[in-house]
């Protein structure tokens, strides 16, 4: 079987989800999202007919699919009431209510910005209420430089208008079809905003592409779509700029990320999310990696009430490589269920997954991963390493890897450890004059260093600061 077929087998087929379908009647409300709402969004954006059709198809799938409720130990989604979300999906009017006034932001978010020492203008930008002047300028300058090389980097809505051919080919077709899961379907129906990145053949974008800009104008960032197409031999590093807590009027974030890594291309996707504590963060992120391509996922999950996010790489071409580096931090009342998925569908493919988690004050972290090595993916190798650090006895940390190995000529290794913060380490640091808090901060900083060293310095610093704040218990 060709890897193409294998891939389709893994994604856009009915069989894939048929085993869950028995629950559908009980869980999907008749009211749901309406066709009128979808038409309204599409019309508002002046979209071509084909995009409207895709939205409507996604809507239909969304209405047919059950909520994911049958995963062992999954976050409680009973509060995610699709009916309640629906009215918020109407564009703009209600959207602006919550987000265009700094004063309306919850205190916890304003406090966080204060403590992070971020200037007020920047704070407003980061929280999505105003314009971020500095970033805008930087972005503009860089855009000129790239445009000469044929690089496209723009708002996803605009890309639908200006690059219809590329978008039509790649948008929620083979990478993240709306049939993938209920929230991918929801996303396909109501998506709005996000980033479109196109890198032509053999072009290297030296500076990281950052997606701060969209927060200026997009009230509907909750359903943003990111599409990255890296042509053969190209290289790009994309950074999703939700490194500060975003405030939202509604409590569901369901983004979609699709990355196409062509032959010999190299894409790094970094994100540090710190959503407000009333947010359900249910994303679908996936990359298709062609021959000798490289995909790197780097993510930090700090915020949200509950997160279910498993970035996925489909290693479709011979010699494709995947790297996942993730860190999750769950504090009081948080359930961060995250991990990685890799499908090895071609020979000589390689993946490494490094996952770190910290749980504290009753928070729960879970690594949930899937490594699939298809029949014929010979000489493939995968190494998965999970480490969990627990601060106290109210917290929980689970590791649930799934490994499906259909090929014998492989090298598969999974390792996980869980432990509390070492009393001896703390004692040692205290005996060198550090107080208890500083000692713990230092141990955590060391624990997550493998992650932070992969991030550009400003993100690494910010991640460290966020974790320090978490540890002081000073974030909401």
């Amino acid at each position, binding site marked *: 079987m060709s890897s193409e077929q294998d891939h389709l087998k893994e994604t856009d087929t009915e069989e894939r989800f048929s085993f869950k379908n028995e629950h559908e009647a009980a869980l999907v409300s008749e009211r749901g999202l309406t066709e009128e709402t979808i038409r309204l969004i599409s019309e508002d954006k002046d979209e071509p007919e084909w995009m409207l059709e895709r939205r409507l198809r996604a809507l239909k799938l969304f209405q047919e699919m059950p909520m994911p409720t049958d995963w062992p130990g999954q976050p409680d989604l009973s509060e995610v009431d699709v009916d309640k979300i629906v009215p918020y999906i109407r564009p703009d009017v209600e959207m602006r209510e919550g987000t265009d006034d700094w004063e309306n932001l919850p205190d916890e978010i304003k406090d966080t910005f204060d403590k992070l020492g971020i200037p007020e203008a920047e704070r407003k930008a980061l929280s999505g209420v105003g314009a971020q002047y500095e970033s805008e300028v930087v972005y503009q300058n860089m855009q000129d430089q790239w445009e000469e090389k044929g690089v496209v980097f723009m708002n996803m809505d605009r890309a639908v208008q200006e690059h219809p051919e590329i978008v039509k080919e790649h948008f929620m077709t083979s990478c993240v079809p709306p049939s993938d899961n209920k929230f991918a379907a929801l996303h396909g129906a109501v998506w709005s905003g996000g980033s479109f990145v196109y890198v032509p053949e053999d072009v290297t974008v030296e500076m990281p592409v950052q997606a701060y800009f969209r927060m200026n104008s997009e009230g509907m960032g909750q359903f943003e779509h990111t599409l990255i197409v890296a042509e053969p031999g190209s290289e790009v590093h994309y950074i999703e700029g939700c490194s500060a807590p975003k405030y939202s009027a509604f409590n569901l974030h369901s983004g979609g990320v699709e990355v196409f890594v062509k032959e010999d291309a190299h894409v790094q996707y970094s994100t540090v999310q710190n959503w407000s504590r009333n947010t359900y963060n249910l994303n679908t992120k996936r990359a298709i990696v062609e021959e000798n391509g490289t995909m790197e996922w780097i993510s930090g999950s700090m915020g949200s009430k509950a997160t279910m996010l498993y970035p996925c790489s489909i290693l479709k071409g011979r010699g494709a490589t995947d790297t996942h580096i993730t860190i999750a931090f769950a504090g009081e009342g948080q359930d961060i269920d995250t991990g990685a998925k890799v499908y090895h569908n071609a020979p000589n493919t390689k993946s490494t997954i490094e996952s770190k988690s910290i749980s504290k004050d009753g928070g729960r972290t879970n690594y949930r991963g899937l490594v699939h090595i298809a029949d014929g993916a010979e000489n493939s190798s995968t190494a998965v390493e999970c480490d969990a650090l627990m601060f106290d006895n109210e917290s929980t940390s689970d590791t649930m890897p799934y490994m499906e190995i259909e090929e014998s000529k492989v090298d598969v290794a999974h390792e996980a450890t869980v432990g*509390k913060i070492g009393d001896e380490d703390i004692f040692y640091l205290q005996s060198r004059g550090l107080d208890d808090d500083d000692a713990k901060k230092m141990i955590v900083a060391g624990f997550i260093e493998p992650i932070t060293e992969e991030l550009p310095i400003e993100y690494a610093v910010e991640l460290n600061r966020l974790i320090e704040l978490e540890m002081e218990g000073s974030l909401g």
Partner: protein
Amino acid sequence: MSTQVHATLTDETVRKISDANDEPEWLIETRLDALSALDDLELPHVIQTPGRSWTNLEALDFESLVDPLTAAEEKDLVGDDDVVVTTLAEAASDDEYADIVRENFGSIVDPQENFLTALSTALFSSGTFIYVPEGVDAEDVKIRTEMNSRSLFNYTLVVAEESSTATILERQYSGAELDEDRYYSAVVEVAAGENAHVQYGWLQNLDQDTYNYTLKRGRTDTYATINWIEGNLGSRLTKSAVETTLDGSGSESQIVGAFFGHEDQHFDVNARVWHRNEHTTADLVTRGVLDDEARSVYEGVQDVGRDAWDTSSYQRENTLMLSDESEADASPKLIINNHDTEASHSATVGQVDAEELLYMTSRGIGEKEATDMLVKGFFVPVLDEIAIDEFRDDLESLITARLDE
């Protein structure tokens, strides 16, 4: 669940089995309750990932497999003088042991835990009761079951009193070939009292027409130890769970497993431990080899409860694939609710090391012989954990026989 079995199974069937054993009323009631619960019970948990179920139990046609009234077996029960090794039926109506049976039966494995445990409880014709009184050292308890019918339901209850020691070896074989699909089911409960030490070895070598469901679960009191050793070589499809609930402070458990699949065999092997009290320790070690189109599914669970302070828990699972048509699925899970824990797990899947093979063949050893030696060597870490010589020798010779086939 479907009513496919229920259609051929009635209260009358269950009463016949029970009457033949002259069982007390409570046991008949327990069986009948299990029977009537069948309709509402699910098959045991099977791992599912998008698009696939790792073991397909739904496909089993229980209506044709289950034939309880013609159950036939040959059973050897061996024990020392000061330990009780008898049938459950006898023990349940014996003045001295009736209360012990009643108190413990179904206390560790809920008869209505799932469809297959309920089926086993309702229909078991072959029950074994092992009772080790306080302070007694029972070194050599043996159960040997030869299955001679279409279906056979076994139930084993082990009660080890305070400070006793028990070493139990149970072997499962098929007798006469029947040339049709068969079903073998076993439920084992082990209650280890304070400071008791139970070692339970299990060797399954049923013929390859047999579907096999096994659930073995032990519960430890303070300072007790339950060590399980499990070898799976036979059957067409095995769904086997070996589990310990570490209830008592300072208690320990080791689960050592080995499987060797060939042709179209399917092993769904689960090793699970629940840390429910302080200072508990667990060590899970499983090694498996797959040849031809054989398939393995491994689930290991280390569950550390909120009250399980000062826990140590380790798990290792390694699978060796000899054939490109084989498939190995694994899911080792850590569920940690107490931070005063040291826990780790690891799993690997790979093939015979090419370099080692080259090294050996370059020394004049034939390729087949070299591979066999490497496979045997692969099982050594598991064999080393087996303290009972007889069991280790048995398992080793079965592995050798499999390689020579």
